[in-house]
C-alpha cells in the first residue's frame, strides 16, 4: 500500500486538494463564458487559459461536471474517418489523447486496443475495403483483415454468429483505436483550467442570452446576470435550447442513444469490436465491465430514458458474437442525448451572432474529439476566427450547400 494512503486514514479533513474549486458566487463580468461543463467546454477553458492567456473565464454547468454526453458515451477513440476534413481533425485528437495523461498529470487509462469493424457479407467486406483504402490515402493507420486475423485477435468470437446472423467475412482493422476513462478526461481538463484561474460553476443553469445589434452582451443564469461579450456553447444534446436563446436556426435534431455495461469479468476482450449489421459496439473497460452501445433510438426525443427493447436487442446481438455471455448479467443501462447533423459532421466555430461561438453537432462522435475541439474552439474564441482545422465545420455550410458528408462518423446505424 502506498504510504500516502495513510494520510487519508489519519487526517480529519480530506488531505488532498480537490480537483477544482467550487466558487460560491458568479463575478459580474467575465471575458469568456462557456456554457456546458462537459469534456468539450472544460477542454476549451483549459486551452483558453494555457494557450491564449485568457483566464477570466466561467464555465457554467447546469448539472455536474461530465454528467452529459461526456459520462454517457462508450469511451471509444478512433480516427478512421472518410473525409479529408474529418480524418485530419480526429487524427489530431488522437495525437493529443496520446500525450494527455502526462499533460494533465492524471491517468486517463488511455489504452490502444485496436478497433475492428466486422463485415458480415461480401458487400460489407467491399465497403470495409473501400474504407481502408480511403483511410490509407488520408494517412490513417487502417487496413482490411480476414476472418483468421479477427479470430486470432479475438479468440472468443464466434465467426459463424451461431448461425443466427450472417457469418463474419473479415473486418476493417484500425490499430490506434483506443478507449479512455471518460470522466477523468473531464476532471483532468477541469483541474488544469481551475489551476490557471478559470471558474467552474456547477448547478448553474443558463436561462437566457442578451444579444444587441447582433452581438452578445451577457448571459442570464439562475444564479444571476453575467456581463460578457464572448459566449461558447458546448452543450451537445442541449444545443437546440441555447441556440433558441440567440435566435439561431440549425439543422440539429435530438435523439437518445443507449448503452449498457455488464457485471465485471476477468480481462478477456482486448480489442474494440464493432458490428454495423448487428448495431453493436463493445469493449472491455479497465474495471472488467463490457461496455456496449447501439445505434440511435429510432425517433427524436429529448429524454435520457432507457428502454427494455434496447437491453433485449443488444444482449441478443452480443450473444450472437460471444455466445458464452449468456449467463452474464447487465449491470446498468442508460441513455445520452445526441444532437444529430444531416451530414454527420460537427457544427463548430463562429456564428452570425457576434461573440457567440458554437461547438455542437456532436451526435454519436463527440468524446473522441474532446481534446481537438477544446484546442480549436479556444483558438476560435480567442481570435474571433475559425481555427484552420474546423473551417469546414462552420454552421454556414447549411446555407452554402457545402456539406461534409462523413460516412465514417458512426460505427453503426447511419
Amino acid at each position, binding site marked *: 500500500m502506498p504510504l500516502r494512503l495513510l494520510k487519508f486514514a489519519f487526517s480529519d479533513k480530506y488531505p488532498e486538494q480537490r480537483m477544482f474549486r467550487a466558487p460560491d458566487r458568479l463575478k459580474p463580468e467575465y471575458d469568456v463564458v462557456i456554457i456546458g461543463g462537459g469534456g468539450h467546454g472544460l477542454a476549451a477553458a483549459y486551452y483558453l487559459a494555457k494557450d491564449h492567456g485568457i483566464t477570466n473565464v466561467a464555465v457554467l454547468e*447546469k*448539472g*455536474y461536471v461530465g*454528467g452529459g454526453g461526456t459520462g454517457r458515451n462508450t469511451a471509444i477513440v478512433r480516427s478512421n474517418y472518410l473525409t479529408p476534413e474529418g480524418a485530419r481533425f480526429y487524427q489530431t485528437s488522437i495525437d493529443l489523447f496520446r500525450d494527455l495523461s502526462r499533460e494533465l498529470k492524471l491517468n486517463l487509462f488511455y489504452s490502444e486496443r485496436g478497433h475492428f469493424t466486422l463485415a458480415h457479407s461480401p458487400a460489407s467486406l467491399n465497403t470495409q475495403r473501400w474504407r481502408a483504402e480511403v483511410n490509407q490515402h488520408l494517412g490513417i493507420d487502417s487496413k482490411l483483415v480476414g476472418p483468421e486475423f479477427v479470430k486470432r485477435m479475438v479468440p472468443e468470437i464466434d465467426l459463424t454468429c451461431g448461425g443466427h446472423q450472417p457469418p463474419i467475412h473479415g473486418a476493417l482493422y484500425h490499430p490506434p483505436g483506443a478507449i479512455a476513462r471518460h470522466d477523468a478526461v473531464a476532471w483532468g481538463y477541469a483541474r488544469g483550467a481551475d489551476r490557471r484561474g478559470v471558474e467552474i460553476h456547477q*448547478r448553474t*443553469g443558463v436561462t437566457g442570452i442578451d444579444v444587441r445589434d447582433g452581438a452578445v452582451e451577457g448571459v442570464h443564469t439562475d444564479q444571476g446576470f453575467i456581463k460578457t461579450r464572448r459566449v461558447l456553447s458546448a452543450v451537445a444534446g*442541449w*444545443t*437546440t*435550447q441555447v*441556440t*433558441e436563446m440567440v435566435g439561431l*436556426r*440549425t*439543422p*440539429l*435534431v*435530438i435523439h437518445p442513444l443507449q448503452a449498457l455495461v455488464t457485471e465485471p469479468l476477468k480481462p478477456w476482450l482486448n480489442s474494440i469490436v464493432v458490428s454495423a449489421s448487428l448495431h453493436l459496439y463493445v469493449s472491455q473497460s479497465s474495471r472488467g465491465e463490457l461496455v456496449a452501445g447501439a445505434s440511435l433510438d*429510432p*425517433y*427524436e*426525443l*429529448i*429524454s*435520457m*430514458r*432507457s428502454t427494455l*427493447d434496447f437491453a433485449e436487442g443488444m444482449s441478443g446481438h452480443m450473444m450472437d458474437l460471444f455466445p458464452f455471455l449468456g449467463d452474464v448479467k447487465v449491470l*446498468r*443501462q*442508460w*441513455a445520452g442525448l445526441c*444532437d444529430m447533423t*444531416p451530414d454527420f459532421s460537427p457544427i463548430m466555430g463562429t456564428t452570425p451572432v457576434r461573440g457567440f461561438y458554437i461547438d455542437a453537432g456532436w451526435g454519436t462522435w463527440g468524446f473522441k474529439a474532446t481534446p481537438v475541439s477544446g484546442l480549436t474552439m479556444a483558438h476560435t474564441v480567442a481570435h474571433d476566427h475559425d481555427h484552420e482545422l474546423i473551417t469546414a465545420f462552420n454552421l454556414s455550410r*447549411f*446555407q*452554402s*450547400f457545402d456539406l461534409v458528408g462523413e460516412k465514417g462518423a458512426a460505427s453503426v446505424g447511419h
Partner: protein
Amino acid sequence: MIVDCGSQIGKYPCVSMDPLIDGGIIDDNYARGIPTTDSTQVKILTCPVNGPRPIQEFHFGGEVRDMPAPHDASDDQWAEYVFNRHGEPAVRREWWYHTPSGTWLIAERNNCTDEVLRTYLFDAEAEHG
C-alpha cells in the same frame, strides 16, 4: 380532419430537460439514469386508419414542414427548408408511417415527454385551403 391543429403546438416547458437539480438536491434517479418524469411513454401509437398499434409498427418521418415553391424560393429559403429543423423542446407536428398498412399520418407529439396529443390523416385542403 384537421380542426384546430395549432392550439397546442408550440413551446413546452420541458421537465425532462432539468432533471438534475430540484431545489438544490441532486436527483438520485438522474444519477442512476432512471427517467425522472412520470411521462406517458409512446409505446402505443394510434393510427387513424387501424387504431392503436405498437410503436414498433411505425416509422418516424420527421417534423411537418412547408415546402417553399421550388421555382420561386431564394437559395436561402431553400437551404432553410432543406436543412434547418425545430430541434428544441416543443409539441410539434410530425410525420409517422404505419408500415404494415402503408399509412402516412400526422402526430402531434411532445418531443420531451414523448406524449402524443393527437393523430390524424393529412388533409391537403385544411392544410393549404
